[in-house]
């Protein structure tokens, strides 16, 4: 059976269990709505859900772009300059001890209830995985390539070696960072929405929860999950397309 087929069977099984819990446990709809009620909600409020999903998606995508940009620049600066490494690396690592969640209220206070505070949250939450992964890749260029470069070019061509060998060699590591980022960026955006907002799926969930519209809460949750999974697979497919030489290739070519 194909991967998609197996995934559908598993999901079908989970839906059955869900329905069974609701039916056998005689749970009221304000605690756990049955799957059909959620599907009905998804269908009836599709427009509402999509408009809020659009806001959240925009926050996530902008946060991803900004976080990737800042993280990449930081990693390059760390790998290129001993001074930056010496003075900023300890602070960077220590700063990770502060949970991003704890500064969410501050960000909303400073940047307001609009998009900016959510983009900042998503940026902050992905900054470290991007920086750490890319920096790690930049530090682990295979020795043979560096030896070759040392014989080929004079020592003052460090920038060229970074540009033509070290940086491309670290792109797969940056790719791993981006996959992690794609998985955590939605957390940042939704968290920002929970702390204070007037739009987005996180806002819709809080709003539905306070009005006991649990079916709408579940519908928003499903939309968010779809959005997050879609983002992850888009990033994954994009990376495979951009780094074709790195796609894991199990069979050894034997054409000679």
């Amino acid at each position, binding site marked *: 059976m194909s991967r998609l087929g197996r995934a559908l069977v598993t999901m079908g099984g989970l839906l059955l269990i869900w329905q069974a819990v609701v039916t056998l446990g005689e749970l009221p709809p304000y605690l756990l709505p049955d799957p059909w009620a959620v599907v009905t909600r998804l269908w009836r409020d599709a427009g509402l859900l999509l408009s809020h999903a659009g806001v959240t998606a925009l926050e996530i995508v902008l946060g991803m772009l900004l976080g990737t940009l800042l993280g990449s620049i930081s990693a390059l600066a760390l790998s290129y300059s001993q001074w930056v490494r010496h003075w900023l690396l300890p602070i960077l690592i220590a700063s990770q001890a502060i949970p991003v969640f704890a500064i969410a209220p501050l960000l909303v206070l400073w940047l307001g209830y609009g998009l900016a505070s959510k983009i900042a949250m998503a940026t902050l939450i992905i900054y470290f995985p991007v920086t750490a992964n890319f920096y790690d890749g930049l530090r682990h260029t295979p020795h043979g390539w560096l030896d*070759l*470069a040392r*014989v*080929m070019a004079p020592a003052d061509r460090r920038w060229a070696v970074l540009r033509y060998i070290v940086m491309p060699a670290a792109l797969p590591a940056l790719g791993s960072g981006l996959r992690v980022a794609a998985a955590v960026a939605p957390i940042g955006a939704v968290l920002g929405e929970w702390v204070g907002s007037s739009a987005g799926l996180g806002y819709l969930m809080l709003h539905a929860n306070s009005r006991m519209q649990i079916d709408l809460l579940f519908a928003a949750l499903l939309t968010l999950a779809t959005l997050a999974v879609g983002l992850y697979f888009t990033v994954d497919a994009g990376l495979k397309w951009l780094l074709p*030489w790195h796609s894991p290739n199990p069979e050894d*070519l034997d054409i000679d």
Partner: protein
Amino acid sequence: MTLLPSISTSFTGAMPPLLAVSLRAAWLVYSGLALFNGLDLELAGGSFTCLLGPSGIGKSSLLRLLAGLTSPGVSGELRGGDGQSLTGRVAYMAQQDLLLPWLSVLDNITLGNRLRGEKADQQQALNLLEHVGLADAAFTRPDTLSGGMRQRAALARTLMEDRPVVLMDEPFSGLDALTRLRLQALSAQLLAGRTVLLVTHDPLEALRMGDHILIMNGRPATLSALPDLPGASPRDPGDPAVQDAYRAILRMLGAV
């Protein structure tokens, strides 16, 4: 299967002038143990010298010292035959092909030019690829090539550097026997007129390729020259003179 191309015309207009190499008082300490101490090595301009010895004796370290790839615990006085430094006048070929997987074969060949910020002579690069039988592979990525083809691409890259001194560290040891014999013949033809030092642990390879053969043995290691063989390289491995010398080498290295 790619056949060995026939070499008809000279592929480089002007060869770099012959350059002898002289290394004096080379010294290498590895974890408190002197691998060699006060070692002298002279390479005549335009000669093909093979350095033979058991593994772990320090052959590669000696070659790296000549390539300017010094590491802590290694020193020696290295000069060209003209009394000048060797920096920028050496090309290096390692056991791994060291092709960059994200570049096409052609871009790999011209890597040195790019690292030095020069404009690469594309025509010359294509010409060299034709001489190593890779004209059709110029625009493909290295991961589509077989081991033999990859090492031929590495040979073309080494030749593209157009340096008077070429240092090779067991470049054929990872190849199957037939591919190795073909590549030895090709290298002997294409490297003629340059000062070459080839490190190998295969006595037959040294006998086939070398104008001169040096044996490195003992601890701290010393170099001893073998009597030069008659005839031009690449020699036939079945030649009686080669077979006699082969037995003599095995006796010297204590293998029989």
